[in-house]
């Protein structure tokens, strides 16, 4: 929590109760609060049923850059239980130069510091910007009022969801800019690309999903996913959505899962839909992703699935968005 945020709250809510030790909550995934584990059937694109394939050839360095975003949330104060939340979202592209990472010079990192407040529960609406903070109304969306529960936990969840969407927006902005300006050099995007706007349709964008709350396999196909061995991938399947571009995806095991959880080293790769020579494309991208398994991303707890380049992005963002 920053002193600036406290000053800002004091400026428009002098009666708000400041929270001495709100604790810092780093939430790195959007929608992490309400998503329920589920298994989803998806049609297989590469062949009739989902099978395991050994990725041919040695891992190959293919990614020129890595993209990731973070969000930081602090509950700064409350007014009769209505939470006033400081949210910081940031996104960056780090390019690899001589095996080391530097910030992409074309676009400085995006860093937004905002206060998330449900205006409808305040005595009067605060100004749009206070002490360098944009103030976001969580009781409306795109200018339309939304009905909110007065329950503080519900208000918090709404704010967290809004912060997550802001982070996604920052990532999408970065991804689109890369795909537009980088001569098609492949970029490793942390998470799904289907929400990355035009980047979801760019051949250079590769999304790597580490969390598997939603598993795109059912029945026997799930057995195939869970029993993948190191260096193996599943057949390519198609992810369709009414609100997002269709992408093709597959599971890939980065590390030997023996002695670990079934999800150990398991990632799901997403690329733009291109039905021409799906196998060749999946193998090529898999080799790129496998090459990023070293160096290891320890001490991050998700090291078995996280690329070192993504860890570098996160460390960078933590340093500048603290």
């Amino acid at each position: 929590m920053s002193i600036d945020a406290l000053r800002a709250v004091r400026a428009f809510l002098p009666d708000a109760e400041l929270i001495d030790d709100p604790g810092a909550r780093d939430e790195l995934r959007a929608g992490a609060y309400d998503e329920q584990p589920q298994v989803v059937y998806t049609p297989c694109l590469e062949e009739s049923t989902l099978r395991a394939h050994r990725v041919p050839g040695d891992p190959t360095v293919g990614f020129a850059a890595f993209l990731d975003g973070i969000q930081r949330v602090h509950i700064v104060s409350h007014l009769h239980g209505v939470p006033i939340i400081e949210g910081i979202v940031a996104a960056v592209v780090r390019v690899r130069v001589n095996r080391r990472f530097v910030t992409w010079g074309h676009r400085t990192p995006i860093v937004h510091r905002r206060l998330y407040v449900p205006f409808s529960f305040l005595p009067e609406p605060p100004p749009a910007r206070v002490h360098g903070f944009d103030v976001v109304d969580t009781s409306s969306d795109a200018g339309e009022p939304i009905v909110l529960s007065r329950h503080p936990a519900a208000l918090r969840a709404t704010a967290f969801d809004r912060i997550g969407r802001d982070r996604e927006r920052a990532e999408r902005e970065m991804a689109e800019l890369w795909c537009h300006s980088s001569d098609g050099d492949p970029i490793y995007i942390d998470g799904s690309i289907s929400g990355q706007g035009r980047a979801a349709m760019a051949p250079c964008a590769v999304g790597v999903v580490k969390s598997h709350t939603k598993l795109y396999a059912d029945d026997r196909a799930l057995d195939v996913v869970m029993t993948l061995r190191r260096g193996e991938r599943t057949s390519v399947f198609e992810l369709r959505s009414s609100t997002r571009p269709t992408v093709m995806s597959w599971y890939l095991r980065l590390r030997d899962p023996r002695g670990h959880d079934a999800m150990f080293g398991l990632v799901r790769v997403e690329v733009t839909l291109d039905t021409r020579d799906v196998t060749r494309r999946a193998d090529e991208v898999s080799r790129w992703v496998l090459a990023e398994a070293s160096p290891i991303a320890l001490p991050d707890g998700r090291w078995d699935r996280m690329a070192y380049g993504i860890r570098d992005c996160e460390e960078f963002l933590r340093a500048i968005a603290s």
Partner: protein
Amino acid sequence: MSDDTTESDVSLLGDARKPLGRVVATERKPNTPHEFHFWTALESPVGIGTIVRVDGRQPVNGQIPRIYGVVVEGFGYTDLVSPLHDVLSHDGQPASAGFASSDRAEIRLYTAAVLRQIPEEPLQPVPMGDVYLALAEDVNVALRMDGYLREGESTGIPIGVYRAGGTDATIYLDADFLVGPEAAHLNITGVSGLATKTSAVEWLLASLFQHFPATHGSIAAVCFNVKGPDLCFLDQPGKLDEGDLRLYQQMGVPAEPFRDVQYYAPYRARGYSLNTLRSNEALSANVSPLTWGLREVLQFAEVLLNRDDIDAKADALIDFITRNVLDQQFTDSMLQRTHVVQSFADLEDWFKDVLHGLEHGNKESWRTHHVATIRKVRNRLSNIAVRCAGLVTDNGPVSDLPFGAFQDRATYVIDVANLEEDAQDLVFARVVSKLREHLERRDLGVRHVVVFVDELNKYAPGDAPDTYVRKMLLDIAERGRYLGLVLFSAQQFRSQVHRRVVGNSGTSVFGRMDADELATPGYSVLSPAIRTKLATLEKGQLMIRHPHFTQPIFVRFPRPAVMTGRTGAEQYPQAGELGLEESVYRSLRRLDPSITLNQVQDAVGIHEERDILRACTLTQQERPSDVLGAFRRHLPRLVGGSLPKPQRAVPALSVLRGDDPYGS
């Protein structure tokens, strides 16, 4: 661009004008007024010993603070928490690490000790700011050299060149703090065998002679050559490479050997030839004998006599002899004759007469001196000529340094390398005492004298019984600067030299050091990185501590422009032991090359050996136009200098007659 910057450095200097680092401070590693931390890019030219400049951002009393520091420690690390993580990264196969797609994030973090803060008040912790490589003008300010390098009144003595990145700055010592009167003396430490200590002193003397300000008066050097041929070829040119020549040019010192060098060495025990490695005939023109008689030695008898000998009674007798007997007519009712004691031989005669008188008169004491004391002093003093044979003559002439006629920028080398320890002590004690006497009276010929003594571990140890030489070195170190008597000293182990000798050295120089020596408490003020650098310092590099520098500075210096001892010994091999006539012939031929060995042999004739040597030495001192004539003149006349008259033939009593063989 500074004058000290070469054209080739332009590109590097271009970088030097950009920040190469940023100051950082954390709660665990805070900045203080004397230390700060900064990080740099991995490829930055910063290293241990690099001088940097910090430009602050917030003005203090209306002035943007500028801080100068020298890097004393460096850290490098990655985001790796445990080495095991790297093992896991590469499946335990080091070879596969080369195929990793990326290198870990890595930091170069440096700690710098503050050299100077501007403004100097208020003294505050070093602020956050950009860090720049110090340019030549920054180095001047950082080391406070700007205070004594003012145009027209500079007292700077170049000691070496500081190099880092594109910066190439000459480092100057302040003559007022090297030779006095503010501070004085220089001590150099380094391991043996790397030619650092002697080379550094030779280079510094050359620089001192060239740059010592005329306003400060004249200066000369007296060097004691205590081992090998180290200082025996100071007047011969040495080999220099282009790098050395550039350094000489940059520092404004002519790359040439010393112009005015005089060598002094005692004779060998037999007294025929000089006891020095510089005995090759080709180099003998400026080599003179160093011989002392009774008068010169008696004043320093304490040096040669151990403390058990010199009790109060013996000391009183020696004092009596010095004041009442030496160099004057001495008569006493008990003595058989009047004595004029001018040599050890005269003294021996005097002792014999005294003891004879005591025995004859059946007395136990004479003039309050007990007969046992007289016998003991006689025994010890008579022994000196034997123990210091070659240096101390029994009754020969004295040949000494030109006290009173020292020349400006001249070097006087006294070769004591082959002398016994007693004799070395005597030489040190007497020469330094004489220098001090003359400097006190301002009649030495020069206003300042640098005395160079190597092997202080031997001559001024910290934990050995007190000796006359150590007392004398302490005296120079503590009081010499007021007189213009400056000690340049060297040793291998600074920690084992008397603390007051090294402690009074205003300037300390360090070459490559032994790791054991660096582990002693005296070096704990240096950071581990500085100690490591000292232990691995290459030839031609030195670390300097000087009163104006708040932190040690690393510099490069050129090889001295003089022939090394080893090369000299090979090029000018030592002359073999000569016979008496050959030795005299060589000595005289230096004064008159037309002299032949036959002429010398004719002149020597049947004279006594000691008379011949005496005549030779007197002739050398006199340097007459008629060398051979002078030599003959100094030889004593032979007793009965005329040939016996031819005897008249005595006729036989009778002449044999005719054929009668039996006579009549």
